[in-house]
């Protein structure tokens, strides 16, 4: 069975993937954000499932996440909003969220709903690789869902090899030892790290995220990896300019 994530990496060498928090700025914006992003030509979209305690996220995503919760967003509501989304949206869709809300929904149920809707994969920052490998990989495979893992500048070579071995879709390279948020440029240490990972010739494509906010950081990302993920900068833009102007944001990046 084909997964849209594989297709997009096969066809496009410079992926632009955009993250946003579902239910933000307004509860019912989710599908309209998706449509606008696709129309603007982004290659892949990560839908953030809001959580009260997003450990790995910086201030912008913390705020959009808690705003979404205040707007009344829940896991069930998100699934309802996404029903039928595949009639209009062709780009790969990934749900990114913390593990606790998925546990409460029931992991099996959660995966089943994702499959029915046409979600291609998940990113769960606080589900460690080994726990996934031992307990959940079979389930994800059953529903044809990919689970993407993060690596950081501190991740050891052995661990990167291990992650590469059990990964599908792509490996999410965290650009820096940091939580999410915007930076204007990459420094020398970061570029060295990008080069090091590139020279490892991993089997799985890589895509760089955290700290990408403009053309410069996007261009360096796609130079050393297969793509870039932008979150905080887009969320800020949405708050300031609104969903309809999405095209403007994407044009400002590439």
């Amino acid at each position: 069975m084909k997964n849209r994530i594989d297709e997009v990496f096969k066809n496009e060498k410079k992926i632009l993937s955009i993250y946003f928090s579902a239910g933000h700025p307004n509860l019912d914006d989710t599908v309209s954000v998706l449509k606008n992003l696709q129309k603007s030509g982004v290659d892949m979209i990560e839908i953030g499932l809001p959580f009260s305690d997003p450990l790995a996220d910086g201030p912008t995503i913390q705020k959009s996440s808690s705003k979404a919760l205040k707007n009344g967003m829940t896991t069930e509501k998100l699934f309802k909003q996404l029903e039928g989304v595949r009639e209009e949206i062709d780009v790969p869709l990934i749900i990114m969220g913390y593990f606790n809300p998925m546990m409460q929904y029931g992991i099996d149920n959660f995966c089943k709903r994702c499959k029915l809707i046409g979600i291609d994969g998940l990113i769960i920052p606080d589900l460690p690789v080994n726990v996934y490998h031992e307990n959940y990989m079979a389930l994800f495979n059953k529903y044809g869902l990919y689970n993407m893992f993060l690596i950081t500048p501190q991740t050891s070579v052995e661990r990167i090899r291990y992650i590469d071995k059990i990964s599908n879709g792509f490996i999410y390279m965290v650009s820096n030892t940091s939580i999410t948020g915007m930076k204007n440029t990459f420094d020398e240490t970061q570029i060295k790290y990008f080069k090091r990972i590139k020279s490892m010739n991993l089997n799985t494509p890589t895509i760089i995220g955290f700290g990408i906010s403009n053309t410069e950081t996007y261009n360096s990302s796609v130079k050393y990896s297969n793509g870039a993920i932008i979150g905080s900068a887009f969320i800020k833009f949405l708050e300031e300019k609104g969903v309809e102007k999405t095209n403007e944001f994407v044009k400002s990046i590439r």
Partner: protein
Amino acid sequence: MNYNINKKGYYGYFGGAFIPEMLYPNIAELRENYLKITNDSAFKKEFDELLKSYVGRPTPLFFAKRLSKKYNAKIYLKREDLCHTGAHKVNNTIGQIILAKRLGKNRIIAETGAGQHGVATATVCALMGVECVVYMGELDIKRQAPNVARMKMLGAAVSPVTSGSKTLKDATNEAIRDWINNPLDTHYIIGSVVGPHPYPDMVARFQSVISEEVKSQLKELEGRNYPDYLIACVGGGSNAAGLYYHYLNDVRVKMIAVEAAGKGIKSGKSAATSALGKEGIIHGSKTLLMQTADGQITEPYSISAGLDYPGVGPMHAHLFLTKRAEFISIADQEAMNWGLTLSQMEGIIPAIETAHAFAVLDIKKFKPDEIIVFNCSGRGDKDLETFINYFQL
């Protein structure tokens, strides 16, 4: 049944390390080294020496004569309130600061709710001459001004947390985020038996000095080294973990864990995690926690800031599930009244957290020859303002 942690870092079903990849190297470093370092004889020597000369250990095991008479049992108080800085918290911060030094870390971060753990951390950082940043919710900073001042006097930077509900759970999130951003030079001193493995086990081991002393003190006082009951309050659960530790697998000893019911379990303003919580993940640990049906972590309430944590350490979740410990919840009012009772019957003003534990005497009946050990975990100085307002003193 074994109630200790297993090789994979779980207490039965609970525990583990549900952490983002960014924290993996730090947690792995700690996991691979904490037993090696803490079992080293030079470490033990330094730890024991500081507990003795700086903290003031061993703390007395005090026979409470008037309470014993009134409640018709042999009641002992383990006087952790006499520790330097006023509570058991410092046992753990002493251990972790020595560990941090041996790991080559020169910057310490910590979270704090009421400020007790923050003060205990700032204290040991001053002692060792190490930089210290304490994360504290903006709301708690307002509620706990004297402890904020203490931390500042001790040279720590108190960093206000404005995210989420601006209390302990958010301060913990913020400390974890700091650690993600500063993985190389920084050690995170968690204040309770919570967080990802190996923290719950490590903190329990540092606090286990409490039950180690109880064992030898009871032997001397009663001719046997175990009590019939151990009773302690539980927020995250570090003082209870310390009191239980050496008795976990000794089933002659019954354990009672006392949680804060706040304004009542069904009032929506409570911190009784065992009664209200469901299994889930908080701060990197699989445990019982208070949350919405949708898995969003909710804000607990208790009049005592040290008990209003929405989760509970994984060891306690396991003790609850296996019924090894009995969990009882006590409301604000009963706890406050026991603050007065203990003061007037034994001349000991307890912390409000600690006062919760004593309220068990109104609920459970004991036999005259039964030996009961309460963990008198902290003193009430920090709570004077609350007592003053509550009783119009």
